[in-house]
Every structure is written in C-alpha cells, then in structure tokens.
C-alpha cells in the first residue's frame, strides 16, 4: 500500500493552486478579497475598507460591493471544485495553461440586512455542476454565521474541457 503524502506537500500544492487562481484576477485584489481554505472548503473574506461604502450617512456597504463579493466567492468555489481533481493529481503547475474561468449567465442577490462597516465573510455551495451549466448558491454574513446579510444564486456557463 502507498503511504499517504506528507501533510506539507498536500498543503503546499493546494495553497499554491488557490493562490494562482486568486492572484490572477485583478478585481479580487481591487476589492481586497481574500480566499481562505480548510481542506476543500473555501471562505471569502472581505476586510472592511472605506472605499466599499455605498451609503455614507448610515454608513453601509455598497449593494454592488456585496453583489461583487458574492459573485467572486461563487466563481472561486465553482472553479475550485471544477479543478480539484486535476490539482490533486498534480496537473496544475506554474507552467500549465491558465485555468479558464466559468462565465456568469445570471446572478440574483437577495439583500437581507444592511451591510455594516466591518469585515464580511461568504461561502458558496455548488448545487449542480454539469458539463455546460452550473448553479451555485452563496451566503454572506458579518458577525454571526446564522444572521446572513445577503445571499445569492447564480448560473454559470462552464468552460470547455477535455474529457
């Protein structure tokens, strides 16, 4: 029987693949979004910044920022799950061609509470991922995991892949 891989090797491979995915998207850096990983579970983190404000009177996060944060997290989760097997087989390396991202077909955001001027978190779940289309649900919260401030569902067109 083959011995399991050393933990450092596994972590290094997964973190490097995730880092490559996230660093390639300028808009993620622009909003300051970070993607944290526990095993295959991803959490989007949006650290608070004054430039994310949409209503200076309240103040509250911009609804568009909330939508963007949800969409970024959904796309990252979908791409991550789509490339997981290849990544585990060591096929995603620095000299491999860039991963082609899914394209958003539609995205519906449900605003449940005002986004407060503090950090926000989001996690997405791929409800269906076929050869051509995928449906992803994503939830965002701030202080309490059970008190969502926004949720969204999006449909995505999957990139063409070799089978």
């Amino acid at each position, binding site marked *: 029987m083959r011995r399991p891989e050393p933990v450092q090797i596994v972590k290094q491979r997964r973190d490097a693949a995730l880092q490559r995915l996230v660093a390639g998207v300028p808009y993620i850096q622009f909003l300051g979004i970070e993607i944290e990983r526990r095993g295959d579970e991803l959490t989007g983190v949006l650290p608070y910044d004054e430039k994310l404000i949409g209503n200076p009177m309240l103040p509250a996060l*911009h609804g568009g920022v909330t939508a963007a944060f949800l969409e*970024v997290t959904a796309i990252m989760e979908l791409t991550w799950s789509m490339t997981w097997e290849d990544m585990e087989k060591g096929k995603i390396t620095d000299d491999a061609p860039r991963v082609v991202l899914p394209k*958003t077909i539609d995205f519906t955001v449900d605003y449940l509470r005002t986004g407060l001027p503090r950090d926000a978190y989001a996690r997405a779940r791929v409800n269906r991922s076929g050869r051509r289309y995928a449906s992803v649900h994503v939830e965002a919260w701030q202080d309490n995991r059970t008190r969502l401030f926004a949720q969204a569902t999006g449909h995505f067109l999957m990139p063409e892949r070799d089978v």
Partner: protein
Amino acid sequence: MADEQPKDRTKIARQFIEAIPHAKVLGMKLTQLGDARAEITMPYDARLVGDPETGVIHGGAVSALMDTCSGAAVMVHPEAPVATATLDLRIDYMRAAQPGDMITTRAECYHIARSVAFVRATAYDNDFERPVATATGAFTVERAPA
C-alpha cells in the same frame, strides 16, 4: 408634496450619489438624472478585470454600476422617496463587454408602491444596439413622515 420643487430633489439626489465612496473609486459619472430615470457611466479600468485572459471587466463591477444607477432612478421618482435600499437585484449577462470600452447604464423606476419600488436597468459598451447586461430589481421606499 410629490410635485414640490423637483429640481431641488434632483439636485439633492445628485449630491448624494456623487458622494458615494464606492461609486467614486469606480469612476462613475452621473450623466442623466430626473423623472424616475438615471444614466451613469463607468470608464474601463484594468483594476476591474475579472478574466485576465480576455481583459473583460468582472461582473461584480457591472453589478455595482447597475445597483447605483437603479437606486438613483428610485430617488428621482416623482413620488419622492427620501431614501432607498436594494431588496433584490437580478442581473442577466448577455455578452462580455468589449475591453477598453466605457460602460453606460440606464435605469428606470417603472413602478412605485407604498413601500417598494421596481426598477429595470440596461448596460451597454460602445455598441448601444447590443446590451451587455440587463437587471431587474426591487428597492425599499423610505418616505418622509406625512
């Protein structure tokens, strides 16, 4: 009253929208405002790219533009809500915006009820014949105390 000093209300709405920090960092410009309609432009910016392979702007930035423009249309509805917030917003992406093109969004608040306003919006790049995206949204209506 609803028909009182519409010019002043448009001016107040304009000041409010132009003071939004996130609209400023995206370079949004209010090009038309009044009578339940708004038009806002956003210049192409390499920092907003969602797919480095193609240079296409991320859908999230288009969402921010659609949301701002829709909210602006609600604020200048003749029934004069004093404030508004997004309840839900659905965006359909028809095609990728041409890299390098400015994005223009036009929104119309086509119905307003006691507590909810309904909005449609369309986004274009330089080709105004073929929309890049459309949106429909429901917004809260905060009215001034009677």
